[in-house]
Every structure is written in structure tokens, then in C-alpha cells.
């Protein structure tokens, strides 16, 4: 902790509260409290996605946290999918996990939570201030905390859609888009709107998804490209595709790099999901304590505002202002009516059936 910067000074205790009473607490803090605090580790390792993702996290959460506590933050840029077996193996073998905090998709975090390799976060003080979105669905406590939401929008190049934004996902079946569409390679984000576009209902998920697979079959004839987050940005930038079902952040990234891109939520709806943070089991007591402080800080308005401005995504605390380019944007839902056209399916239904959906999608696309 540096005392040379009283303006930004923040104590551990104030971290435990909401940030509102910051200054006052720092002034009256008795030194005794310090003695009760567990020993500070020299650094915490936070798994993060690279590029603008980690830059945003650094600006909004990691750097201010370091400034307040003196604890250095190291970012591990291993993919969320690829760190998972490492954490699971460490837990199974009783080793200290390779990271302190995992910034993860809610779906992947749910798997780890079900497996029992996550620490409970129910005692984070800032949860009291967070919206309902922060709570993971289907769990008693908080084996993880959701930190923001995002939409799998239909991103498109306006040039290719002279009649305005596509009102329906079916629009993509136009023969002129053959080979010019991109989807995630496991079909994530596309299954649910496809279920509606194929004539089915959301209530039938997961028991009857024939409609979804029929629509995917139709889409297969369009020979879509299949990829992951960075691919979408690259493909838009290189003019390989006209439209994609992707997280709005990827489209926004390409737009910021000067590519003309818009996005929309078609009438069938678009998938809404969340990302979150969690702490793997097996950390020493003091490191666990400070890892919790990190996540607690990530739930402050101050941290969320900067972090999520970078990502262009809606957070989980009240009072955030959207970035200028995303006011009233479909990818930045804040009011209940904004959610009307968004599809949200519980993490547990997703993880229990994901493998089946995934192999079905692959079977169609690889066929």
C-alpha cells in the first residue's frame, strides 16, 4: 500500500464495504484492524481473455486494486476452456491451483461449480449492492459471481444488407450469403434462436429441439464458416463474411478498427448469457482472502464502469452509464423491456445438454 497517493487510498476494510464511504473509513481506520488481516501475497494471478478484454480488466479492476492494496496482479491469458483441465487436475491431485481468480463464462464456471472445485463467495459484501443478474441460477450460494451480461447478436455489414437490418435469422438463408456467414464452431448462441426460427418453442428446450436442428440443416447448405471469438473479428476485418452470430464485443472490436459493422436482435430473439468470476479450491488461506477482495472490488460501481466500458457490456450493479456508442443498443440491455426479445436459459440446462447439442451441431456441420 502506497501512502503517497492519499486520494486513491483505500483500505482493506473499506474494500469489505461498498466503496461509498471510502474516504471517511480510511481516515478513521484503527491500525488494529490491519493486524487481523491475513498476510498479503506479493501477487494474485487472474485468468483473463487477451486483447481488449484484458486491457479493460486491467484498467477497471486490476490496476486500481494494485494501487489500493499493493498486491501485483498477473494476468494468465490461457483460454478459459484450456485452463479448466489444469484446475481440475490440480484439485483432484490436491495441488495449489495455477491461478487465483478465474474470469470465465458462466457455462464453464457452472461445470466447475457442479464438480465442486470452486470456493463459495456468498460472504462478499458487495453482493448486497448487486443486481439479480450477479447470482448464478440453480445454486444455493455463490460458487461463482456473474459480473456482466452479453448478447449473441446478429452482426452484419450494412453494405450487404441494403434494405436495412435483417429482421429475421431466416434472412441469412438468402443464397447470396452462401459462404459469407459465420457461426461459433460449437453452435453456441445459435441453438436457441434457431429453435424459434425453425418453428419450435423455447419451452421445448431441451426435450424437443427438432426445429433447431432443421434450421441448422438449412443453414448448413449456406456453408457457414465456423470459428471462435477472435476469428469473427478477423473475418469481418478481412471481408470474409457478411454476417455472423457472435458476441457483440467481437463486432464492436472490428468496428473500432474501422470496419463498417452493425448488429441487431432479430424477431426470433437472441441468446443472452453472462460471464463471471470464481476462485478455485486449494489456495492458502491468505491468498483466498485476497482473491475474494479482488472479486469484491470487481463488483463495485467504480470498477464495473471502467471495465465494462471497455467491453461494451451491461454490468451487475445499478447506476452504470453505457458507453456513448451503445446507448439504447440492443446489445446493452438494462431495462426489463430490453430483455423481452432476449433468450436466457439456465446454466444447468445448458451444461447438462451442451455436449449433446454440440455433437449434434458438429454432426450436421462436419457432414
Amino acid at each position, binding site marked *: 500500500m502506497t501512502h503517497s497517493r492519499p486520494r486513491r487510498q483505500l483500505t482493506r476494510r473499506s474494500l469489505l464495504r461498498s466503496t461509498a464511504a471510502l474516504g471517511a473509513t480510511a481516515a478513521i481506520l484503527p491500525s488494529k484492524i490491519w493486524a487481523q488481516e491475513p498476510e498479503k501475497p506479493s501477487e494474485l494471478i487472474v485468468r483473463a481473455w487477451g486483447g481488449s478484454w484484458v486491457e479493460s480488466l486491467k484498467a477497471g479492476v486490476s490496476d486500481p486494486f494494485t494501487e489500493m492494496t499493493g498486491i501485483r496482479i498477473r494476468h494468465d491469458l490461457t483460454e478459459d476452456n484450456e485452463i479448466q483441465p489444469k484446475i481440475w*487436475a490440480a484439485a483432484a491431485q490436491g495441488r495449489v491451483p495455477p491461478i487465483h481468480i478465474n474470469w470465465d463464462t458462466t457455462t464453464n464456471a457452472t461445470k466447475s461449480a457442479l464438480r465442486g472445485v470452486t470456493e463459495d463467495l456468498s460472504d462478499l459484501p458487495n453482493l448486497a449492492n448487486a443486481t439479480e443478474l450477479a447470482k448464478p441460477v440453480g445454486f444455493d450460494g455463490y460458487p461463482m459471481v456473474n459480473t456482466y451480461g452479453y448478447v449473441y447478436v446478429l452482426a452484419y455489414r450494412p453494405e450487404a444488407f441494403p434494405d436495412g437490418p435483417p429482421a429475421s435469422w431466416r434472412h441469412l438463408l438468402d443464397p447470396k450469403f452462401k459462404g459469407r456467414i459465420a457461426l461459433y464452431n460449437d453452435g453456441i448462441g445459435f441453438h436457441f434462436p434457431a429453435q424459434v426460427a425453425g418453428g419450435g418453442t423455447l419451452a421445448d428446450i431441451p426435450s424437443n429441439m427438432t426445429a433447431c436442428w432443421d434450421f441448422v440443416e438449412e443453414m448448413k447448405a449456406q456453408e457457414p464458416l465456423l470459428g471462435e471469438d477472435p476469428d469473427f473479428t478477423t473475418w469481418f476485418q478481412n471481408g470474409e463474411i457478411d454476417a455472423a452470430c457472435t458476441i457483440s464485443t467481437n463486432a464492436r472490436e472490428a468496428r473500432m478498427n474501422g470496419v463498417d459493422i452493425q448488429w441487431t436482435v432479430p424477431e426470433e430473439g437472441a441468446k443472452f448469457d453472462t460471464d463471471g468470476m470464481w476462485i478455485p479450491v486449494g489456495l492458502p488461506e491468505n491468498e483466498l482472502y485476497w482473491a475474494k477482495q479482488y472479486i469484491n472490488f470487481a463488483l463495485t460501481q467504480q470498477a464495473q464502469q471502467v471495465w465494462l466500458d471497455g467491453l461494451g457490456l451491461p454490468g451487475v450493479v445499478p447506476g452504470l452509464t453505457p458507453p456513448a456508442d451503445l446507448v439504447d443498443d440492443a446489445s446493452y440491455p438494462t431495462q426489463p423491456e430490453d430483455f423481452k426479445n432476449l433468450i436466457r436459459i439456465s446454466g444447468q440446462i445448458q451444461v447438462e445438454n451442451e455436449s449433446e447439442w454440440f455433437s449434434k451441431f458438429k454432426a450436421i456441420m462436419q457432414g
Partner: protein
Amino acid sequence: MTASRSQRVVIWILVGLALVVLSAPTVVVLGASLTSGNIITFPPDGLSLKWYAKLAQAADLRDAFLRSLWVASICTAVALPVGTLAGIALAKFRLRFENALQIYLLLPFTIPLIGSGIGLMLVFGEWRVLGQLWPVGIACAAINLPFMIWAVSASAGALNDDLELAAASCGAGRVQTFVHVTLPAVLPGVITGSLLMFILALNEFLVSLLLTDARIVTLPVQIYNSIRSIITPDLAAVSVVFIACAAVAIAVLDRVVGLDIFLKSK
């Protein structure tokens, strides 16, 4: 070279094609690293060295590069004696169960790298040695060992039993014979193999990804991880610096031992 005209034409067409295909990505990456824009493109969008400037400040990349050098050194130090001995043995002697042995020694290539990575992660994890660099070096030696073995046994064509027998009959001991007769004969293979082991370990990312953590991440893993999110021109710049280091190493090698050594087995 005594060659007919048609032979020359055919060879040159094929080799020319191969040269273009081998070098094209290198040229493009080199060019893309000089862009002044934010997107990796070729031809570059204006010329600038800004991505190299950004690189110069990235201490983490430099550390990662040094770690990679260390891993590659360990890998080579392990693979060199192990592979040389095995290569000589396979070339010189007719072993029983040789087919089975060959299949076994090819396991590093028939096991998919993801399988090797997961397996080694579990084994090293059980032994509590993860979080250090030397297991990564040993892993790299294991997964690329066939290259070392074959490079040596391929150059064993120059091995001459008569010469070894002569040495022995002149009273040379086994160690002496090995050091003065056998080893020099396979030296080109040993050098080719060692260089390959070093280079491959320097660039290994899939197995290393599972065996390293953020504190000991190596350069290829760092690049791989960064690319997974977004590919920016600084990654092209890293590759160019890498190539430059390689070029210097090759030039030094050429000065010291001569590049021809790869091809001489006499």
C-alpha cells in the same frame, strides 16, 4: 552435377515452388509487422516501427523468450545423449523385437500432442514437479525424440564396421573406439538432430500450455494465448524478432562449423 537440361528444368520448377511456399508466410509476417495500422495486413497499411517500440517495452515477452531458451537448452541437453545412443544402437545392431521397439519409439509422434500434454500434466502433477521449467524441457525432449534418433541413425550410413574392428584390433578400448570412430561418423546427424530439437522446443506450445503457469509461461505459449483473443501486429513483430535471432544463430553456426556439416557424412 551432371544433369540434362530437362532434368534441371523440372528440379528447378519444383524447388522454386517449394521455396516460394516455404518463404511466403515469413515474408508476409515480416511485412505485416511494419504496419502503422492496428490490423495485421499485407501489404502493410503504412510503414512504422511502432509495434517494435511496443515490443521493446514488453518485459513479459522478453522474460518469456528467455524461459523458452532455457527450456530448449534443457530439451537439447536431454535429447542429445539419449537420442544419439539410441540412434547408433538402432543403426548398428540388429535388435530382437526391433519392429516393436520402433513402434514404441515412434509413440511420441503417434500420440496426439493434446494426449501427451494431458498425460504429462497428470504424471508431473502427481510427482509435484509442475511450476518449474525443467519438466517442460524434458517433455519437449520426449515428444520430439524420434527426430533426434532418426537424424543420427540416418547419418549412420557412414558407419563402418571394419573401421571399428580395426580400431579394436589395434588395442583401442570400447570407449576410445566409440569416441574416436563411431561418434565422428554420426556427427552430422547429431548436429542436425540437436538443432531440430532445440528449434522445436523453442516453438512448442501445445504441451507447454498444459505444463506451464502464468509465472513460467514460455514465448510460444504466450503468443498462442494472445492469438486466441485477437491477433495484433505486435505478434507479427515478435515472430520477426524470433526470426532475426534465428538468423543470427544460423550465421554463427555457419561461421563456426559451416552449414555444410548437415550434409556431409564423410
